[in-house]
């Protein structure tokens, strides 16, 4: 009997049913501690506990009792911060009156007010690096939270138009799939200057993942590697950047503008420059974040982790007198509800989830997203457009997993807020006095 991997083809209904059943049962067996923690699961940033806790939340919408769902073991940053809760008798009631909404337009410029129910939206993952199923699951979840998810730089698959109120159109340096139609459709246009996991290096979609459909949407040739150069070849200054924004706003005068940058030493200046160029949202992407594929050398060595960039930018915006006119969003290493609250206490208004969404849908953080030796991409069906593998994430299932996960995150955020005596998440912004640093030993 030879079990050789056959040429990938769309799975039959029986195969789908068998595989999905096994995968989902397997995820739940681990999440509900019916089977031991896999020994090879997890790393210092995403520990086995964090991954399993996320699977539990994604299945139940509740917080797990058996796992540490708050911190990893990276020995620094969020993992060394804790909250200074007030005495228990002063805690507020847990409930919907605790306001977790996020205001994305603080410019008072007559454009639309966008206020997601959570201080969270979905980061860019392009079509090609993930499948339409994953994109749709994220978009449908975003809709339920009155929130958003970003297309990333891979164009706008037609299915997404059905969710256009909740989809951010990303304009990045390769301009892949950027069309008047997708600019007009969106409530937010996101300019991606750089990406935390590979700052200053541009993007690269390997040939194996640039199949027929991906190439069509990106305006390219199938199975040819696609590079997004770095940086925008039309931007040398804040004035050039302003021209970009003008151009977008001519096409879509209602759209809010987000500017995504990474975290160099002068990130504070970059943020202020972006504000004066007209950005509503300044999105900082820290160096410990995830991505489809990046040179290993770039991941931790270039630019700074998000925990260190947030206070720098927050304080500088205050100094410049513009802090209340712009929304500061943090991403790149935000894993948990506790990280969200800590990022806000350090000075952000809200955060972007990327890897957490994937973990909620079964990612084990195995690092084979770029294709791995199989060349087919993620065996869990997440970061792949392989005709068979992509079916392992069904839209309904993905949407439900994400919705549950976000519900648990909201519950925990409210739990933190009430224990700090705060009734609105916005009141936590910049409150480093409510944090405690845990020094000594390993954290």
């Amino acid at each position, binding site marked *: 009997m030879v079990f050789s991997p056959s040429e990938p083809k769309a799975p039959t209904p029986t195969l789908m049913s068998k595989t999905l059943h096994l995968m989902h049962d397997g995820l739940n067996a681990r999440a509900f501690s019916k089977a031991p923690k896999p020994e090879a699961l997890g790393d210092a*940033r995403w520990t086995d506990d964090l991954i399993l806790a996320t699977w539990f939340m994604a299945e139940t919408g509740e917080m797990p009792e058996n796992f540490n769902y708050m911190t990893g073991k*990276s020995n*620094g940053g969020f993992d060394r911060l804790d909250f200074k809760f007030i005495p228990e008798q002063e805690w507020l009631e847990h409930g919907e009156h605790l306001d977790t909404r996020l205001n994305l337009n603080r410019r008072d410029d007559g454009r639309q007010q966008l206020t997601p129910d959570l201080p969270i939206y979905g980061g860019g993952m392009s079509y090609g690096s993930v499948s339409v199923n994953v994109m749709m699951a994220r978009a449908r979840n975003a809709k339920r939270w009155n929130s958003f998810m970003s297309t990333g730089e891979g164009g706008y698959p037609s299915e997404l138009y059905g969710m256009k109120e909740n989809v951010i159109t990303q304009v990045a340096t390769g301009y892949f799939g950027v069309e008047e139609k997708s600019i007009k459709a969106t409530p937010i246009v996101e300019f991606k200057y750089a990406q935390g996991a590979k700052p200053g290096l541009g993007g690269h979609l390997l040939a194996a993942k640039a199949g027929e459909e991906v190439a069509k949407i990106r305006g390219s040739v199938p199975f040819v590697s696609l590079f997004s150069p770095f940086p925008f070849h039309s931007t040398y200054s804040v004035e050039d950047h302003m021209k970009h924004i003008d151009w977008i706003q001519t096409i879509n005068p209602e759209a809010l503008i987000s500017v995504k940058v990474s975290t160099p030493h002068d990130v504070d200046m970059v943020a202020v420059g972006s504000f004066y160029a007209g950005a509503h949202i300044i999105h900082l992407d820290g160096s410990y974040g995830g991505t489809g594929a990046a040179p290993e050398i770039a991941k931790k060595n*270039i630019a700074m982790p998000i925990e*260190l960039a947030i206070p720098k930018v927050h304080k500088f915006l205050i100094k410049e007198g513009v802090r209340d006119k712009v929304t500061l969003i943090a991403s790149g290493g935000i894993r948990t509800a506790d990280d969200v609250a800590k990022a806000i206490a350090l000075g952000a208004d809200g955060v972007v989830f990327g890897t957490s969404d994937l973990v909620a849908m079964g990612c084990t953080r195995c690092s084979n997203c770029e294709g791995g030796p199989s060349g087919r991409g993620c065996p869990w069906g997440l970061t792949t457009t392989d005709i068979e593998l992509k079916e392992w994430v069904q839209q309904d299932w993905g949407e439900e997993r994400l919705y549950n996960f976000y519900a648990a995150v909201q519950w925990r955020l409210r739990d933190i807020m009430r224990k700090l005596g705060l009734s609105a998440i916005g009141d936590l912004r910049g409150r480093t006095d409510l944090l405690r640093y845990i020094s000594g030993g390993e954290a």
Partner: protein
Amino acid sequence: MVLTTEREPEHEVVIEMSESKGKVLTLEQARARADTYLRYNIDTMETADRWKIPRRFNVKVGKFGLAKLLFKEFFKYFGHWETVFSRPCTYGVFSGPVGGFSPRPNLCVGCLRCEVQHPDFVTVTPNGELRALGDKYLTWRHISTIDEEARKGSVPVRGQGYRGRFGGPGFDGMFTDMSEIVRPSRDGIHGRELIGTQVDIGKKPMHLEFDGNGAICNEPEMMTIQVPFLYSAPPTNLDDDRVVEIMASAAAKVDTLALLPVDVVNRLELGGANVAPIVNCAGCEVPEGTRLVELRQWDEQAHDALENKGLLVSVAIDMSGDWRADMKEARLGGASILHLYADHHGLDGEDGFLMDTLAEAHTNLVNAGIRDEITLIGSGGIAGADHLPKAIISGLDAVGLDHSLLVAMQARLSGDTKERNSATVQLPDDFDNAWGLQRVVNLSCSWRDQMLEILGAMGVREVRRLRGEFGRSMRCSVLEAEAFGEIEGYPGGGD
């Protein structure tokens, strides 16, 4: 030089160049000249491991559990054979002749789908044998990464983000800067191909002086290597001619330098422009074509005598001793190339790490107003590609590679791997020169390419401009103090 086209004389392009004023080139001649231009390139070739590095994971499949599953699925999905025989692994671990009954764990990449799907009879565990490699500085991760780099010659790329600790000791505590809009070049995909990695080694005056006729009186006496790293001598206790032969050949291929003991160089006739013999005294014979020698320790007379032979002279400074005083003495005595040797964990005799000690050495030279007159080389503690730019930012002109080269040649290091010249080195059984040469060349290419990634992200067009650029790097400890300084509990922070 005047460039003219025969076909379109009205569009004649006139370019004046001082060295050939007045000479007229046809378009074809100009093209022919352009075609002689060779871009620096390191030729890589996939070079398989000779010693199979331990696999990443062990995969155990309970035979009874698998048989039970097959039996159950045979009936449940009878007729749907594709479904019956479908397996969770897309990497072929269960695709051998008897499938999961004899898995092929070497192919496992740890996606854990099999274990999650079949918790009752599959386990995937990290392979302890791999994790036992190396020591606390040159870790198993460094070793497996170097192995991959030496095998493929490319830049390691992986999915998902960073997996390690926040900041960390040694070079992990430094982040390099990037620029959101400044690029080294607007050409090409990333402009990387126009970034220079050459460095100069030798005597450079702080400024040029001219005589009455406009001729330069103090011409720089230096040589240029194409990459900002060179190959430091293998441990003295490694008695294997093949290793030094490989280093000499690789240095010639990459156009860098191999520092090798003079007696070995002479005995094996390895001399040439890319080999720098290490000598004890001025009387040592060095082969024809030698451009640079290294003195084992400072000796003013020997130094001057060697310089008088027209050689560039590097002076080894052992950082386990009073390296500050030794450096000063050599510098005041006229040495212009100083080679600092830390131990293999990058420490000096007082446990000062490279990031600080090199910065101090560099700053002392800056403060003395002579930084550009001195070439600073440093060896010891370079275990990964990121250490190269970080050592240069810390103040080096060029970086010496040592244990990493041996790891590229799949040497197994044991014993005291921290002190210089004390590790026990075991080479693969079927080790040979051609194989070892390509592995070192591959590693060199991979590390140079990764250097280009860093320079490209920074918007720096040549590596020479990276030297001592503390301002284009960030120390995690400094950033943490800024970010968390006012938070209760932060050491020295708020309350």
